Each structure stands twice: as C-alpha cells, then as structure tokens.
C-alpha cells in the first residue's frame, strides 16, 4: 500500500538500525511521547532491533490512560441516566472508574454508543431531540479540533440536547514536568506527530531551548520511529540540542491554523489532573464560558464530583518513563486487559497493554 509499505520496508529499517549502531557510543535513554508510537515499537519489536545502548522509555501520550478517574466517574454517572444517550470513542468504554466501566453501564441498560467522530453524536442529537446526547470529548490536541467543531456546530444550529464532557490534555506541559523532575533520565524525545500536525512544533522549540534537550517530531510507522531515533542519536553524539522534524510529510512548523483557531474559540487552557501523575498546571483544555450551555459537567451538576486516585500499581512511574510495565509485580497476573488495574493496561495505546499484547512471553 502506497505511503505505508515504504515506511515498513525491512531494507530501509535495517539501514537505519545500522546507522544508529554506527553513531551511538554510549547508553542513551530516549522517550517516545505518543501511545501510538509505543504501540508500533512493541508491535514491530523496534526496541529489539536497535543497539543495546539505546533504551526506549514510554511517555504519557495515551489519552485513555491519563484521563483522571473522576472524569470516568462523571461519564458513568451521566451515561447511567435514563434520559441520556452517551457517545464515546470505543476504547474509553473499558477504562475502570472507581467502581465500574462504561461497558457495564451499557450492559445494565444505559444507552452508550461507540462513535468514530463527535459529528456522529451531533447526528444522533438531531435525530433524537427528546434524548440528551452527551459526547465524551477526551484526548490530546489531536482530537480537540474535531470536538471543538462539534460544540461550535451545535451552537450554530442551536441544538438544545447536545453537550460534551470535555477533558482534553496538552502534551508540552507534560514534557516540561518530566524534564523538571529530579528523577528524569530521558535524554531525547520523539514528539507526537499527530499532535504536531495540528499544533505545529513551536512549543517544542521552547522546550529544546529551555532544557537543552533534543526533540525530533516523529511519525508512527517503524521507519519513522527508527529515523527519529537515528536523528536523536546523531544530535546527542554531536552534542547538539535541536528541534528536528522527521514527520515532514504531515507536520509543519505552524501546524494547522484553522484547527488551532477553532480550538481557541471553543476551549480555554486549564489546570488538569492526569491519571497516575497528578495535577499539572495549564495542561488541559476546558470549554469556554460562552459554551457553558454545552458543558455536560455543568448541565448535570457534576462539577464537584471528585474521586480518589487509587494507588494504581506503578502506572504513575510507567507513564513517566521511570519504570517498564514488566517491572510491575501485578503485570500479567493481577492486571490484564480483561481485568485492568490501571488505565495503561486498557487502551491498546497504553504501554502496559502493548507489552502484554505483543511481548509477554518473548
């Protein structure tokens, strides 16, 4: 398949591995931010291919994993109401809240539906004006524009029965937190290509400058990741700290201006709790007051609901790249995709699930 096979080409991949081996002179710890990248690394065994000096640690970029437990509880409270049709991306349905997950709400008769886009929720709202249709608007900067568009469109159409439970998170504040941590071991980052397709990479240039750390914007195929690793190794070996763009077929410095404009119009930056990590200042997006009529938390009076983050295995350490999933004593025993203890075991983008699915006996 064009634009795909060339990025999975074994000859190109092995040439890049060779180049990495040629350049690397000492141990290097690199982190891929995005869960989609982690998934590719595990699925194709990229961590096996690269020389042993390269240690790949996995970042917090799994939207399912970092959505705080009280948001899941709020989703469950809303979805359990008989007057609500609750629409969500598929992999949010299996994330454990304090007691159950959304699949169980569905099994008990809740009207919970899986959608590929928030626009489907709008369609449902138009078709069933007597139902309160709520979309679960989570994710990083990647899904924010589409979610913003749904709210904007609902306001334009004066839809009275549509709202959004919005809990967006932003990547750069999380990287900043990792870099500020005294425990940080990461020497170079692969920035998330899809997030940067929307946002561009100016924010990452600031990180490079502030922390003198190399960052390469990377794609999601094996060759993308190997090339990004090769670029990071070259920078580290040369003593450079620069922002480079490996994923130029999708990412430009400025990103998508219309998408950013729409996001700014509908959302504002807010402090946000990350599951397993805790509160990160100015690390999320919430609906602007002008769109309060579409804010499900306000409509259903759930703003005060809070839940204690359980001491979930070691997911906090996994999400910060300080531990590998296999370092957790519960991994594959008490904690499996069927009975996940922590969110990284739920989504296929979660580091624990990726290890479990592709690696647990090898």
């Amino acid at each position, binding site marked *: *398949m064009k634009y*795909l096979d060339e990025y*999975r080409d*074994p000859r190109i*991949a*092995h040439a890049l591995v060779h180049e990495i081996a040629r350049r690397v002179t000492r141990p290097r710890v690199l982190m891929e931010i995005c869960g*989609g990248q982690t998934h590719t690394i*595990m*699925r*194709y*065994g*990229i961590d*096996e*291919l690269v020389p042993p000096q390269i240690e790949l640690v996995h970042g917090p970029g799994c*939207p*399912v994993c970092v959505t705080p437990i009280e948001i899941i509880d709020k989703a469950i409270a809303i979805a359990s109401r008989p007057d609500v049709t609750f629409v969500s*991306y*598929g*992999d*949010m*349905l*299996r994330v*454990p809240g*304090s*007691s*159950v*997950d959304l*699949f*169980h709400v*569905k*099994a008990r008769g809740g009207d919970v539906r*899986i959608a*590929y886009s928030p626009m489907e929720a709008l369609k449902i709202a138009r078709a069933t004006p007597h139902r309160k249709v709520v979309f679960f608007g*989570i*994710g990083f900067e*990647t*899904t924010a524009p589409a979610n913003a568009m749904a709210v904007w469109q609902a306001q334009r159409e004066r839809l009275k029965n549509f709202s959004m439970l919005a809990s967006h998170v932003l990547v750069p504040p999380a990287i900043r937190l990792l870099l500020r941590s005294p425990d940080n071991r990461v020497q170079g980052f692969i920035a998330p290509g899809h997030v940067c397709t929307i946002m561009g990479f100016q924010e990452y240039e600031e990180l490079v400058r502030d922390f003198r750390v190399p960052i390469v914007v990377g794609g999601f195929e094996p060759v993308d990741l190997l090339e990004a690793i090769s670029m990071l190794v070259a920078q580290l070996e040369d003593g450079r700290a620069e922002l480079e763009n490996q994923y130029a077929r999708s990412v430009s410095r400025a990103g998508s201006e219309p998408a950013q404009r729409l996001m700014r119009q509908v959302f504002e930056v807010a402090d946000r709790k990350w599951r397993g990590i805790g509160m990160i200042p100015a690390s999320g997006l919430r609906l602007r007051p002008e769109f309060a009529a579409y804010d499900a938390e306000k409509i259903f009076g759930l703003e005060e609901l809070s839940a204690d983050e*359980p*001491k*979930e*295995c070691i997911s906090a350490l996994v999400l910060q790249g300080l531990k590998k999933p296999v370092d957790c*004593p*519960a991994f594959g025993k*008490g*904690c499996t*995709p*069927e*009975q*996940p*203890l*922590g969110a990284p075991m739920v989504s*296929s*983008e979660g580091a624990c699930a990726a290890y*479990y*699915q*592709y*690696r*647990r*006996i*090898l």
Partner: protein
Amino acid sequence: MTCPVPLANRDHVVLGHGSGGKLTAELIRDVFLPAFRNPILAGMNDQAVVRLNDSRVAFTTDSFVVKPLFFHGGDIGSLAVHGTVNDLAMGGAQPLFLSVAFIIEEGLSMETLHRVAASLGGAAQTAGVQVVTGDTKVVEKGSGDGLFINTTGLGLVPDGVNMSADQARPGDTVILSGSIGEHGIAILAEREGIEFETPVESDSAALHTLVNDMLAVTKSIRCLRDPTRGGVSSALNEIAAASQAGILLDERAIPVREEVRGACEMLGLDPLYVANEGKLIAIVGPEDADALLDAMRAHPLGRSAQKIGTVTDTHPSWVSMRTVLGTTRVVDMLAGDQLPRIC
C-alpha cells in the same frame, strides 16, 4: 501491592462475551461446560461428531445476528447456511441437512423476509444441503433487532477422517485458504457508512467442496478451523491451546487485500482479529503441505492459499509472529471486541 480497582466484571453479560475472544471462552468454561458436562462437548470443536449405529454424524448449530441484514457479498440468509455448513465441513463432514429457526421482530417488512428466505434457500441449494425442518417466532417490537436466524446442521463424516483442534504437532505446517478480514470489514463499512473505490465484499461462502478436494489429497489433515469471530488470531490461539503447542506465523505470508488493509489502518484494527466467513485454516503434516496447497489453489475458494506458519515446540499454547522487520511478537487472543483507537 493492593489491587485497587476490582471491577464487578462478572455481574452482567457484556458485549465482549460474544466477541469470540477470551471473554467468550470464559463464559463457555465457567457457565456452559459445567452445566452440560460430557466428553463430546469437552472436545470443544466447531461441531460434535457422534456415532449413531455405524455412522459418524457431525452435528452443529449457529445463530446469526448480523446487522445490517444485507451487505456487500451476502446477507443474513446465505450467511446462515454458510456458517453452519462450514462448521460441519471443519470436521470433514459432508453436510446434508439443516434446520432453520427465524426469530422475527414485529414490524419487519415482508419483502425483507422474502428476500432473506430466498437467499437462504438459494445458498442451501448451491451447497447441496436441504432445509428439512424449522421454526418461526415473532417477538414484540423492541425485543429483537429485525431478524435473528439459527441454523443447525447434520452431516456425515467419512471413515478415516479424524480432525480435531488438539492434534497440531511441532513441525506441522499452517495453511490459510485466502486473504483475511473481508467479511468483518464489509460489515463494518456498511454499518459505519465507509465507502471504498471498490467495495469490500464479504467472503461468505460454503467451504465443504474445498475441504472435499483437500481430503482427496490426504485424510490425515490434523485440524481445520474457519476463522470467523475473533479472526485468524482466535482460531490459532484455540488450536495452540488445545494442542499444547506453539504456532509461529510469518507476517509477510498472510494475504490481506489492499482495501481491507486500508480500512484496518484507518480504523486502527488488526486484520488478524477481523472476522472471515469463507476462509479456513488447515494444520497439516509437513509431508502433505505442498500437495494440499496445490489442491487448494486449484479450487476457486482457495486460489490465494498460503503457508502462513509452522507449529513449534517453543512457547506451548502461544501464537507468535515473525514481523516484516524480522522481529517476533505475540499474537494474543483479544479479551473482547477490537476497539477503535482514539487517535
């Protein structure tokens, strides 16, 4: 370490219990097997083979709840024939008779019912099986989803044929009869309104004539499975577990059509977990593999048959795969349905 989120996962049936993955296996193991305990059921094959007088009779049943009722390449009627005929064929049986039960939701259009019945009858005729008994129930509006069909099939197993999921042996070859994922993607495309330049058609087909051609080459095929719900991954994991053997696949050898690959890429799905309704997996001794492959390729339903892997003595009960890059990964059985990823 305390386990902080003990979900009350087993209080209610969830959709994943019907996915053909681990949750389904758990339901069978924990609820049904203990309730019905007997040695024939314990074989856990797609069909039961029972001895009646001097004949070996294969017996199977399957329910069809596909939505939409009509899709590219088939409909619930033809599918209800193919699914049950294939479950018989995977035991090497010659399919003979079907029963058909219709559970109809009040309000279904008569025209739809006519079309489905005609399609079912046509498919049975093409497959050379007769629908000899049936049942009709109508449920109140809201108690069904248009139309559900159950078919039960009877067939005869020829002497000398003895295939079962527990017979894979290290060194055996794994053969797949053609490209995967077409049924699942055809259904998904129809449901989600996804359009392709050339629409993906369901591969729904009756496989018993292909099996006949294969058994003409050798009766000592170890095991046949049709990778329906849960896809190739579930079928191979079941075989690996039943045989206590490992299976190593070669990713490059697994045929997937471009449209199916494209749809899977777009939706974040892995074709190894997507359903098929006209494909089979054969586990055969290495000495028979080439002759079988030739026979399969000579049949219209096996034209793109491929050797996709081998049975190994490493990692018993596990399926793994050599990737395009030459690394190895696990091919796990999914817990429930594949969930589309967020981004």
